[in-house]
Protein backbone atom coordinates (compact mmCIF):
# COMPACT_ATOMS: atom_id res chain seq x y z
CA UNK A 1 0.00 0.00 0.00
CA UNK A 2 0.95 3.61 -0.56
CA UNK A 3 -0.26 5.49 2.51
CA UNK A 4 -0.59 9.24 2.54
CA UNK A 5 -1.36 11.17 5.72
CA UNK A 6 -1.89 14.89 6.37
CA UNK A 7 -0.20 15.82 3.10
CA UNK A 8 0.17 19.46 2.11
CA UNK A 9 2.26 20.47 -0.89
CA UNK A 10 1.47 23.57 -2.94
CA UNK A 11 -2.19 23.29 -3.91
CA UNK A 12 -2.42 19.70 -2.64
CA UNK A 13 -4.28 18.99 0.60
CA UNK A 14 -4.80 15.27 1.24
CA UNK A 15 -5.67 14.32 4.83
CA UNK A 16 -5.59 10.59 4.20
CA UNK A 17 -5.32 8.30 1.18
CA UNK A 18 -4.39 4.69 0.51
CA UNK A 19 -3.45 3.36 -2.94
CA UNK A 20 -3.34 -0.38 -3.63
CA UNK A 21 -0.70 -2.07 -5.79
CA UNK A 22 -1.63 -2.07 -9.50
CA UNK A 23 -2.45 0.62 -11.99
CA UNK A 24 -3.91 3.84 -10.70
CA UNK A 25 -4.89 6.85 -12.78
CA UNK A 26 -4.94 10.42 -11.46
CA UNK A 27 -7.43 12.62 -13.22
CA UNK A 28 -8.96 16.05 -12.71
CA UNK A 29 -9.29 19.46 -14.36
CA UNK A 30 -6.29 21.52 -15.44
CA UNK A 31 -4.56 22.97 -12.40
CA UNK A 32 -6.10 20.48 -9.95
CA UNK A 33 -2.69 19.26 -8.77
CA UNK A 34 -2.07 16.09 -10.80
CA UNK A 35 1.55 16.86 -11.67
CA UNK A 36 2.25 18.16 -8.15
CA UNK A 37 0.88 14.89 -6.75
CA UNK A 38 3.15 12.84 -8.99
CA UNK A 39 6.25 14.91 -8.15
CA UNK A 40 5.56 14.51 -4.43
CA UNK A 41 5.14 10.74 -4.83
CA UNK A 42 8.40 10.67 -6.80
CA UNK A 43 10.23 12.32 -3.91
CA UNK A 44 11.26 15.12 -6.32
CA UNK A 45 9.35 17.62 -4.22
CA UNK A 46 9.21 17.17 -0.46
CA UNK A 47 5.78 18.01 0.98
CA UNK A 48 5.42 21.00 3.31
CA UNK A 49 3.76 18.73 5.87
CA UNK A 50 2.60 15.15 6.10
CA UNK A 51 4.00 11.80 5.08
CA UNK A 52 3.99 9.36 2.21
CA UNK A 53 4.92 5.75 2.85
CA UNK A 54 5.32 3.31 -0.03
CA UNK A 55 5.13 -0.18 1.48
CA UNK A 56 6.37 1.46 4.67
CA UNK A 57 9.27 3.33 3.04
CA UNK A 58 9.83 6.99 2.21
CA UNK A 59 9.76 7.80 -1.52
CA UNK A 60 13.43 8.81 -1.29
CA UNK A 61 14.31 5.25 -0.24
CA UNK A 62 12.37 3.63 -3.10
CA UNK A 63 13.35 3.04 -6.71
CA UNK A 64 11.19 5.30 -8.81
CA UNK A 65 10.78 5.60 -12.57
CA UNK A 66 9.38 8.68 -14.31
CA UNK A 67 8.26 9.39 -17.87
CA UNK A 68 6.84 12.80 -18.76
CA UNK A 69 4.53 14.05 -21.50
CA UNK A 70 7.35 14.97 -23.85
CA UNK A 71 10.04 12.39 -23.12
CA UNK A 72 12.51 14.01 -25.49
CA UNK A 73 12.74 16.98 -23.16
CA UNK A 74 14.16 14.73 -20.45
CA UNK A 75 16.69 12.88 -22.61
CA UNK A 76 20.20 13.81 -21.44
CA UNK A 77 22.66 11.79 -23.49
CA UNK A 78 23.72 11.70 -27.13
CA UNK A 79 23.70 7.93 -27.55
CA UNK A 80 20.73 5.69 -26.73
CA UNK A 81 22.93 3.20 -24.83
CA UNK A 82 24.19 5.95 -22.50
CA UNK A 83 20.69 7.30 -21.93
CA UNK A 84 19.33 3.92 -20.84
CA UNK A 85 22.47 3.24 -18.76
CA UNK A 86 22.29 6.59 -16.97
CA UNK A 87 20.25 5.57 -13.88
CA UNK A 88 22.74 2.74 -13.20
CA UNK A 89 25.80 4.90 -13.83
CA UNK A 90 24.46 7.68 -11.59
CA UNK A 91 24.16 5.16 -8.77
CA UNK A 92 27.68 3.79 -9.30
CA UNK A 93 26.85 0.38 -10.76
CA UNK A 94 29.83 -1.43 -12.32
CA UNK A 95 30.30 -1.40 -16.08
CA UNK A 96 29.69 -5.12 -16.73
CA UNK A 97 26.40 -5.17 -14.87
CA UNK A 98 25.40 -1.92 -16.52
CA UNK A 99 26.10 -3.26 -20.00
CA UNK A 100 24.23 -6.51 -19.31
CA UNK A 101 21.19 -4.72 -17.90
CA UNK A 102 21.06 -2.19 -20.74
CA UNK A 103 21.15 -5.01 -23.30
CA UNK A 104 18.56 -7.04 -21.40
CA UNK A 105 16.22 -4.08 -20.95
CA UNK A 106 16.54 -3.02 -24.59
CA UNK A 107 15.84 -6.58 -25.73
CA UNK A 108 12.76 -6.73 -23.55
CA UNK A 109 11.42 -3.55 -25.16
CA UNK A 110 12.51 -4.76 -28.62
CA UNK A 111 14.75 -1.72 -29.15
CA UNK A 112 18.18 -3.44 -29.22
CA UNK A 113 18.72 -2.06 -32.72
CA UNK A 114 18.56 1.49 -31.37
CA UNK A 115 21.33 1.20 -28.77
CA UNK A 116 24.09 2.76 -30.88
CA UNK A 117 21.86 5.41 -32.47
CA UNK A 118 21.99 9.08 -31.53
CA UNK A 119 19.02 9.99 -29.38
CA UNK A 120 18.21 13.07 -31.46
CA UNK A 121 17.87 10.94 -34.61
CA UNK A 122 15.02 8.87 -33.12
CA UNK A 123 11.37 9.18 -34.09
CA UNK A 124 8.88 10.39 -31.49
CA UNK A 125 7.74 6.84 -30.72
CA UNK A 126 11.31 5.57 -30.40
CA UNK A 127 12.10 8.35 -27.93
CA UNK A 128 9.14 7.25 -25.81
CA UNK A 129 10.41 3.66 -25.81
CA UNK A 130 13.93 4.79 -24.83
CA UNK A 131 12.44 6.85 -22.00
CA UNK A 132 10.50 3.81 -20.76
CA UNK A 133 13.65 1.67 -20.91
CA UNK A 134 15.49 4.31 -18.86
CA UNK A 135 12.66 4.48 -16.33
CA UNK A 136 12.41 0.68 -16.03
CA UNK A 137 16.06 -0.39 -15.99
CA UNK A 138 16.36 -0.20 -12.20
CA UNK A 139 13.15 -2.22 -11.75
CA UNK A 140 11.24 0.58 -10.03
CA UNK A 141 8.84 -0.04 -7.15
CA UNK A 142 6.81 2.85 -8.46
CA UNK A 143 6.50 4.10 -12.04
CA UNK A 144 5.04 7.57 -12.58
CA UNK A 145 3.74 8.70 -15.96
CA UNK A 146 2.75 12.33 -16.35
CA UNK A 147 0.33 12.38 -19.32
CA UNK A 148 2.83 10.31 -21.23
CA UNK A 149 0.08 8.84 -23.40
CA UNK A 150 -1.48 12.17 -24.42
CA UNK A 151 -0.20 12.03 -28.00
CA UNK A 152 0.31 8.29 -28.48
CA UNK A 153 -2.01 6.18 -30.60
CA UNK A 154 -3.98 3.17 -29.37
CA UNK A 155 -1.65 0.48 -30.65
CA UNK A 156 1.36 2.25 -29.20
CA UNK A 157 -0.33 2.59 -25.79
CA UNK A 158 -1.09 -1.11 -25.92
CA UNK A 159 2.56 -1.88 -26.58
CA UNK A 160 3.61 0.31 -23.64
CA UNK A 161 1.02 -1.35 -21.37
CA UNK A 162 2.43 -4.75 -22.33
CA UNK A 163 5.96 -3.60 -21.47
CA UNK A 164 4.89 -2.36 -18.02
CA UNK A 165 3.20 -5.69 -17.31
CA UNK A 166 6.32 -7.63 -18.22
CA UNK A 167 8.42 -5.61 -15.80
CA UNK A 168 6.04 -6.36 -12.90
CA UNK A 169 6.10 -2.80 -11.61
CA UNK A 170 4.27 -2.93 -8.28
CA UNK A 171 2.71 0.52 -8.54
CA UNK A 172 2.00 2.36 -11.80
CA UNK A 173 0.48 5.81 -11.31
CA UNK A 174 -0.37 7.86 -14.36
CA UNK A 175 -2.19 11.11 -15.00
CA UNK A 176 -4.59 11.30 -17.92
CA UNK A 177 -7.59 13.17 -19.30
CA UNK A 178 -8.63 10.35 -21.58
CA UNK A 179 -11.42 8.02 -20.37
CA UNK A 180 -10.10 5.29 -22.69
CA UNK A 181 -6.80 5.33 -20.78
CA UNK A 182 -8.58 5.50 -17.41
CA UNK A 183 -10.34 2.29 -18.46
CA UNK A 184 -7.00 0.47 -18.27
CA UNK A 185 -6.52 1.32 -14.57
CA UNK A 186 -7.61 -0.57 -11.47
CA UNK A 187 -8.31 2.58 -9.48
CA UNK A 188 -9.22 6.13 -10.43
CA UNK A 189 -8.31 9.07 -8.21
CA UNK A 190 -10.15 12.30 -9.06
CA UNK A 191 -8.56 15.56 -7.93
CA UNK A 192 -10.19 18.97 -7.77
CA UNK A 193 -8.42 22.08 -6.50
CA UNK A 194 -5.78 19.97 -4.81
CA UNK A 195 -8.21 17.69 -2.97
CA UNK A 196 -9.10 14.08 -3.62
CA UNK A 197 -12.81 14.18 -4.41
CA UNK A 198 -13.09 10.49 -5.21
CA UNK A 199 -11.17 7.26 -5.32
CA UNK A 200 -12.96 4.32 -6.87
CA UNK A 201 -12.39 1.02 -8.61
CA UNK A 202 -12.85 0.99 -12.37
CA UNK A 203 -16.18 -0.83 -12.09
CA UNK A 204 -17.50 1.34 -9.30
CA UNK A 205 -17.28 4.79 -10.88
CA UNK A 206 -20.38 6.93 -10.53
CA UNK A 207 -22.27 7.29 -13.84
CA UNK A 208 -21.32 10.19 -16.10
CA UNK A 209 -23.62 12.31 -18.20
CA UNK A 210 -21.98 11.09 -21.40
CA UNK A 211 -20.87 7.59 -22.35
CA UNK A 212 -17.73 9.02 -23.95
CA UNK A 213 -16.65 10.41 -20.54
CA UNK A 214 -17.30 7.14 -18.74
CA UNK A 215 -14.29 4.83 -18.18
CA UNK A 216 -16.74 1.95 -17.67
CA UNK A 217 -18.05 2.42 -21.23
CA UNK A 218 -14.50 2.44 -22.59
CA UNK A 219 -13.66 -0.75 -20.77
CA UNK A 220 -16.52 -2.42 -22.70
CA UNK A 221 -15.16 -0.99 -25.95
CA UNK A 222 -11.65 -2.27 -25.18
CA UNK A 223 -12.94 -5.72 -24.30
CA UNK A 224 -15.13 -5.95 -27.41
CA UNK A 225 -12.12 -5.20 -29.60
CA UNK A 226 -10.11 -8.06 -28.14
CA UNK A 227 -7.96 -6.05 -25.76
CA UNK A 228 -6.93 -8.59 -23.19
CA UNK A 229 -7.72 -8.11 -19.55
CA UNK A 230 -4.58 -6.34 -18.45
CA UNK A 231 -3.72 -8.71 -15.64
CA UNK A 232 -1.79 -11.54 -17.27
CA UNK A 233 -2.00 -15.01 -15.85
CA UNK A 234 1.22 -16.17 -14.22
CA UNK A 235 2.22 -18.41 -17.11
CA UNK A 236 1.70 -15.62 -19.64
CA UNK A 237 4.35 -13.50 -17.98
CA UNK A 238 7.60 -12.94 -19.83
CA UNK A 239 11.05 -12.14 -18.35
Amino acid at each position, binding site marked *: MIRITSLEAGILDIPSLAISPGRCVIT*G*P*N*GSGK*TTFLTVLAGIRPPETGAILIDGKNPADCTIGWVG*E*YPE*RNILFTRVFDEIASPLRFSGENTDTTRDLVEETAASLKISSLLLRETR*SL*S*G*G*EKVLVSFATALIKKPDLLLLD*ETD*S*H*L*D*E*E*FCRRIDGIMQRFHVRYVLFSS*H*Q*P*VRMATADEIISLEKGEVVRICGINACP*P*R*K*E*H*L*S*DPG*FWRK*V*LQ*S*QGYPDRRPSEDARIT
Partner: protein
Amino acid sequence: MPGSPELSLKGVTLQRGSFLLRADGVFMPGVHLLTGRIGSGKTTCGKVLAGITRPDRGEISWSGTERVMLLQNAGYHVTRATVRDEAASWNTDPDTVIRLAGLSGKEELDILFLSRGELKRLELASLLSRGSDLVVLDEPFNALDDDARRWVTRLIAEAQNRIVIIISHDITSLPPVHELWETEEGVLKKIGRIPGDMRRWDKSPLLIRYLWQKGENPAGLSRSDLEEAVCRIHGSG
Protein backbone atom coordinates in the same frame (compact mmCIF):
# COMPACT_ATOMS: atom_id res chain seq x y z
CA MET B 1 -16.39 31.81 -54.41
CA PRO B 2 -13.97 34.76 -54.57
CA GLY B 3 -11.53 35.11 -51.71
CA SER B 4 -11.89 31.52 -50.64
CA PRO B 5 -8.53 30.14 -49.47
CA GLU B 6 -7.11 27.03 -51.09
CA LEU B 7 -3.94 25.02 -50.60
CA SER B 8 -2.79 22.47 -53.12
CA LEU B 9 0.20 20.14 -53.09
CA LYS B 10 1.50 18.36 -56.15
CA GLY B 11 4.29 15.79 -56.01
CA VAL B 12 5.61 17.17 -52.72
CA THR B 13 8.45 15.17 -51.15
CA LEU B 14 10.67 15.70 -48.14
CA GLN B 15 13.50 13.43 -46.97
CA ARG B 16 14.59 13.35 -43.32
CA GLY B 17 17.17 10.62 -42.73
CA SER B 18 15.44 7.39 -43.68
CA PHE B 19 11.98 9.00 -43.52
CA LEU B 20 10.36 10.12 -46.77
CA LEU B 21 7.22 12.26 -46.83
CA ARG B 22 5.12 12.26 -50.00
CA ALA B 23 2.08 14.51 -50.23
CA ASP B 24 -0.51 15.35 -52.86
CA GLY B 25 -3.90 16.91 -52.29
CA VAL B 26 -6.11 19.97 -52.21
CA PHE B 27 -7.36 21.58 -48.99
CA MET B 28 -10.46 23.77 -49.17
CA PRO B 29 -12.18 25.71 -46.35
CA GLY B 30 -13.62 23.45 -43.68
CA VAL B 31 -12.36 21.19 -40.91
CA HIS B 32 -9.93 18.47 -41.93
CA LEU B 33 -8.86 15.66 -39.62
CA LEU B 34 -5.37 14.25 -40.25
CA THR B 35 -4.75 10.93 -38.52
CA GLY B 36 -2.15 8.17 -38.69
CA ARG B 37 0.10 6.03 -36.52
CA ILE B 38 2.85 7.54 -34.42
CA GLY B 39 5.86 8.15 -36.67
CA SER B 40 3.77 8.05 -39.86
CA GLY B 41 4.56 11.70 -40.65
CA LYS B 42 1.54 13.65 -39.36
CA THR B 43 3.53 16.45 -37.74
CA THR B 44 6.06 16.70 -40.59
CA CYS B 45 3.17 16.90 -43.04
CA GLY B 46 1.47 19.55 -40.88
CA LYS B 47 4.63 21.68 -40.94
CA VAL B 48 4.74 21.48 -44.75
CA LEU B 49 1.03 22.42 -44.96
CA ALA B 50 1.62 25.38 -42.65
CA GLY B 51 4.63 26.51 -44.66
CA ILE B 52 7.04 26.08 -41.73
CA THR B 53 9.06 23.40 -43.51
CA ARG B 54 9.94 23.69 -47.18
CA PRO B 55 9.75 20.43 -49.09
CA ASP B 56 12.66 19.17 -51.20
CA ARG B 57 10.56 18.84 -54.34
CA GLY B 58 7.08 19.46 -55.65
CA GLU B 59 4.71 22.35 -56.00
CA ILE B 60 2.71 24.03 -53.27
CA SER B 61 0.25 26.68 -54.32
CA TRP B 62 -1.47 28.77 -51.72
CA SER B 63 -4.10 31.42 -52.16
CA GLY B 64 -5.04 33.09 -48.93
CA THR B 65 -3.62 35.15 -46.08
CA GLU B 66 -1.26 33.70 -43.49
CA ARG B 67 -0.86 30.06 -42.48
CA VAL B 68 -0.16 29.22 -38.82
CA MET B 69 0.43 26.06 -36.79
CA LEU B 70 -0.05 25.18 -33.14
CA LEU B 71 2.84 22.94 -32.10
CA GLN B 72 2.18 19.83 -30.03
CA ASN B 73 4.13 21.22 -27.10
CA ALA B 74 2.67 24.69 -26.45
CA GLY B 75 5.81 25.55 -24.45
CA TYR B 76 7.72 25.93 -27.73
CA HIS B 77 5.55 28.93 -28.64
CA VAL B 78 6.56 31.01 -25.63
CA THR B 79 8.56 34.12 -26.53
CA ARG B 80 7.66 36.56 -23.71
CA ALA B 81 7.91 36.61 -19.93
CA THR B 82 4.36 37.42 -18.83
CA VAL B 83 0.91 36.23 -19.83
CA ARG B 84 -0.05 39.66 -21.20
CA ASP B 85 3.14 40.11 -23.24
CA GLU B 86 2.85 36.58 -24.62
CA ALA B 87 -0.74 37.23 -25.77
CA ALA B 88 0.31 40.59 -27.24
CA SER B 89 3.17 38.94 -29.14
CA TRP B 90 0.56 37.36 -31.43
CA ASN B 91 -0.55 40.85 -32.55
CA THR B 92 -4.04 40.41 -31.18
CA ASP B 93 -5.77 42.34 -28.43
CA PRO B 94 -4.25 40.75 -25.31
CA ASP B 95 -7.19 41.46 -23.01
CA THR B 96 -9.69 39.85 -25.38
CA VAL B 97 -7.47 36.81 -25.86
CA ILE B 98 -6.77 36.41 -22.14
CA ARG B 99 -10.49 36.62 -21.38
CA LEU B 100 -11.19 34.10 -24.13
CA ALA B 101 -8.60 31.74 -22.63
CA GLY B 102 -10.23 32.06 -19.20
CA LEU B 103 -7.08 33.60 -17.70
CA SER B 104 -8.43 36.98 -16.54
CA GLY B 105 -6.59 38.07 -13.42
CA LYS B 106 -3.41 36.26 -14.48
CA GLU B 107 -2.24 38.95 -16.93
CA GLU B 108 0.94 39.83 -15.04
CA LEU B 109 1.81 36.26 -14.10
CA ASP B 110 5.14 34.77 -15.18
CA ILE B 111 4.28 32.72 -18.27
CA LEU B 112 6.15 29.73 -16.83
CA PHE B 113 3.78 29.66 -13.84
CA LEU B 114 0.82 28.63 -15.99
CA SER B 115 -0.16 24.96 -15.92
CA ARG B 116 0.26 23.05 -19.16
CA GLY B 117 -3.48 23.26 -19.81
CA GLU B 118 -3.58 27.02 -19.15
CA LEU B 119 -0.64 27.65 -21.47
CA LYS B 120 -2.24 25.56 -24.17
CA ARG B 121 -5.49 27.57 -23.83
CA LEU B 122 -3.55 30.85 -24.10
CA GLU B 123 -1.67 29.80 -27.24
CA LEU B 124 -4.83 28.34 -28.81
CA ALA B 125 -6.87 31.47 -28.08
CA SER B 126 -4.09 33.71 -29.47
CA LEU B 127 -3.61 31.66 -32.60
CA LEU B 128 -7.30 31.22 -33.38
CA SER B 129 -7.99 34.95 -32.85
CA ARG B 130 -5.70 36.05 -35.67
CA GLY B 131 -8.14 35.22 -38.44
CA SER B 132 -5.53 33.29 -40.43
CA ASP B 133 -6.88 31.53 -43.52
CA LEU B 134 -5.17 28.24 -42.68
CA VAL B 135 -4.61 26.81 -39.22
CA VAL B 136 -2.83 23.54 -38.47
CA LEU B 137 -3.47 22.31 -34.92
CA ASP B 138 -1.10 19.52 -33.83
CA GLU B 139 -2.81 17.55 -31.05
CA PRO B 140 -4.91 20.53 -29.85
CA PHE B 141 -6.73 18.49 -27.19
CA ASN B 142 -3.89 16.99 -25.23
CA ALA B 143 -3.18 18.54 -21.83
CA LEU B 144 -6.76 19.91 -21.88
CA ASP B 145 -9.51 18.84 -19.48
CA ASP B 146 -13.13 18.21 -20.52
CA ASP B 147 -14.27 21.84 -20.18
CA ALA B 148 -11.29 23.13 -22.13
CA ARG B 149 -11.82 20.53 -24.85
CA ARG B 150 -15.41 21.70 -25.32
CA TRP B 151 -14.17 25.29 -25.40
CA VAL B 152 -11.58 24.72 -28.13
CA THR B 153 -14.00 22.58 -30.15
CA ARG B 154 -16.48 25.48 -30.11
CA LEU B 155 -13.77 27.97 -31.11
CA ILE B 156 -12.75 25.82 -34.08
CA ALA B 157 -16.34 25.26 -35.21
CA GLU B 158 -17.08 29.01 -35.09
CA ALA B 159 -14.36 29.90 -37.58
CA GLN B 160 -15.91 30.35 -41.03
CA ASN B 161 -14.30 30.20 -44.44
CA ARG B 162 -10.92 29.05 -43.23
CA ILE B 163 -9.00 25.82 -43.60
CA VAL B 164 -8.55 24.09 -40.26
CA ILE B 165 -6.38 20.97 -40.16
CA ILE B 166 -6.56 19.04 -36.89
CA ILE B 167 -3.82 16.49 -36.31
CA SER B 168 -5.04 14.08 -33.66
CA HIS B 169 -5.34 10.42 -32.78
CA ASP B 170 -8.04 11.24 -30.20
CA ILE B 171 -11.38 11.49 -32.00
CA THR B 172 -13.59 12.05 -28.95
CA SER B 173 -13.49 15.88 -28.80
CA LEU B 174 -13.84 16.94 -32.42
CA PRO B 175 -16.04 19.64 -33.95
CA PRO B 176 -17.92 18.65 -37.14
CA VAL B 177 -15.27 17.33 -39.56
CA HIS B 178 -15.66 17.73 -43.32
CA GLU B 179 -12.73 15.75 -44.70
CA LEU B 180 -10.58 12.93 -43.46
CA TRP B 181 -6.87 12.46 -44.28
CA GLU B 182 -4.31 9.92 -43.19
CA THR B 183 -0.55 9.56 -43.28
CA GLU B 184 0.77 6.06 -43.66
CA GLU B 185 4.52 5.45 -43.70
CA GLY B 186 5.11 8.97 -44.89
CA VAL B 187 2.41 9.11 -47.58
CA LEU B 188 -0.46 11.59 -47.24
CA LYS B 189 -3.75 10.12 -48.43
CA LYS B 190 -7.21 11.60 -48.55
CA ILE B 191 -9.74 9.11 -47.24
CA GLY B 192 -12.68 11.26 -48.24
CA ARG B 193 -15.57 13.32 -47.04
CA ILE B 194 -17.36 12.76 -43.76
CA PRO B 195 -19.74 11.03 -43.33
CA GLY B 196 -20.03 9.70 -46.92
CA ASP B 197 -16.60 8.10 -47.19
CA MET B 198 -16.15 7.06 -43.57
CA ARG B 199 -16.39 3.36 -44.42
CA ARG B 200 -13.20 3.72 -46.46
CA TRP B 201 -11.31 4.35 -43.22
CA ASP B 202 -9.35 1.08 -43.00
CA LYS B 203 -7.40 2.06 -39.91
CA SER B 204 -10.33 3.55 -38.08
CA PRO B 205 -9.90 4.03 -34.33
CA LEU B 206 -11.20 1.77 -31.60
CA LEU B 207 -14.49 3.61 -31.06
CA ILE B 208 -15.43 3.62 -34.76
CA ARG B 209 -14.66 -0.10 -35.05
CA TYR B 210 -16.82 -0.72 -31.99
CA LEU B 211 -19.75 1.27 -33.45
CA TRP B 212 -19.54 -0.51 -36.80
CA GLN B 213 -19.39 -3.85 -35.04
CA LYS B 214 -22.63 -2.94 -33.26
CA GLY B 215 -24.22 -1.93 -36.58
CA GLU B 216 -24.09 1.82 -35.91
CA ASN B 217 -22.99 4.45 -38.42
CA PRO B 218 -22.28 7.77 -36.72
CA ALA B 219 -23.69 10.80 -38.56
CA GLY B 220 -20.23 12.40 -38.43
CA LEU B 221 -17.11 12.64 -36.30
CA SER B 222 -18.13 15.43 -33.93
CA ARG B 223 -18.31 14.62 -30.26
CA SER B 224 -22.12 14.85 -30.31
CA ASP B 225 -22.40 12.62 -33.41
CA LEU B 226 -20.31 9.95 -31.68
CA GLU B 227 -22.11 10.26 -28.34
CA GLU B 228 -25.46 9.93 -30.12
CA ALA B 229 -24.31 6.79 -31.91
CA VAL B 230 -23.25 5.29 -28.57
CA CYS B 231 -26.61 6.25 -27.05
CA ARG B 232 -28.38 4.30 -29.78
CA ILE B 233 -26.59 1.21 -28.44
CA HIS B 234 -26.56 1.84 -24.71
CA GLY B 235 -29.38 4.30 -24.15
CA SER B 236 -28.79 7.88 -23.03
CA GLY B 237 -26.27 8.17 -20.20
